[in-house]
């Protein structure tokens, strides 16, 4: 039953995702891509639970690796996006 609920959530989120993006000006393509990319680092949340089991087995180490990699994606992604958008503001006045 759990799987069915999760699939419902999946379907609705896909529709929202489709509806969110329209008529984006070309100058915003790269920042939008970068900002969305940072969100995909959400996988860090899944990695946290795997890295915190305290069992010190292979899965635990993989979880820790996933936390590190996903943190690069999240922190780097948001900071890079912010830098890009800050430049826009200056140029646009």
């Amino acid at each position, binding site marked *: 039953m759990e799987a069915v609920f999760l699939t419902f959530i999946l379907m609705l989120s896909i529709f929202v*995702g489709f509806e969110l*993006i329209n008529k984006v000006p070309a100058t915003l393509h790269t920042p939008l*891509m970068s*900002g969305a990319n940072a969100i995909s680092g959400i996988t860090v949340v899944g990695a946290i639970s795997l890295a915190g089991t305290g069992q010190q087995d292979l899965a635990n180490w*993989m979880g820790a690796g996933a936390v590190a*990699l996903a943190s*690069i994606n999240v922190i780097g992604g948001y900071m890079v996006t912010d830098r890009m958008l800050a430049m826009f503001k200056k140029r*646009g006045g």
Partner: protein
Amino acid sequence: MESSQLGIQIAYVVAAALFIFGLKLLGSAGTARRGNTLSAIGMLIAIVAALTDQGIVDYRFILGGFVIGGLIGATASRLVQMTAMPEMVALFNGFGGMASLLVGAAAISGAVGTFTLITVVLSILIGGVTFTGSLIAYGKLSETIGSGAVTFKGQQIVNSLIVIGIVASAIMFCLTPSDPVWLYTVIGLSLLFGIMLVIPIGGADMPVVISLLNSYSGLAACAAGFAVNNNILIVAGSLVGASGIILTQIMCKAMNRSLSNVLFSGFTAVSDETV
């Protein structure tokens, strides 16, 4: 549901709402920066909520991962040249894909039922393709490797064989999850397939490819969410997956081309020469 679990789930709902608002605001010039900040706050809320989970008994591995990843991410995003932004995004995206691959693989021991195993395979497959595909895209844009389209005779046949191999080993893995050989085969072939997908595409088309790979990394996170039974991964992952596809299409349209034209342009160039 325990009250602490309920609290985490409510925090995830708030985070999801902030992601949606953030993406919406990122779509217009005046509000874009605020949108990015909102989405970052959403991420912070989700991470803090995940840290309060009672299943976590040891914070050392998590902290170590955060410190290493955070330092690398922050340093790279500070030092990167403005002109080198797209390849930086590609690199970050690849790391996200690899993280989803690892989450999927680490979730195997706790996976019960065929459905979960299928989502494990999907997160490994999509994550792996995203990882190597993004690395190649990075290499082409930064001209670490040649930016030209790499094509060779029989490439399509090789690609078809890889796809068949992936499907076959994925099925074998779901049937015999205890045998690690099939898992390694799926991982290896996914990594190879990511390379094969991106090498025939020329450097000028890379921004579109990165956008597409960004969409993939969202889908990988979504599959990983199914594998570890986590709502926020599914919601945020599919948001990125869907909006990434739309953005890819918009970018193609801006270049007056179709997506298939971009993805297979390398192949048609070969067949044009032979005509």
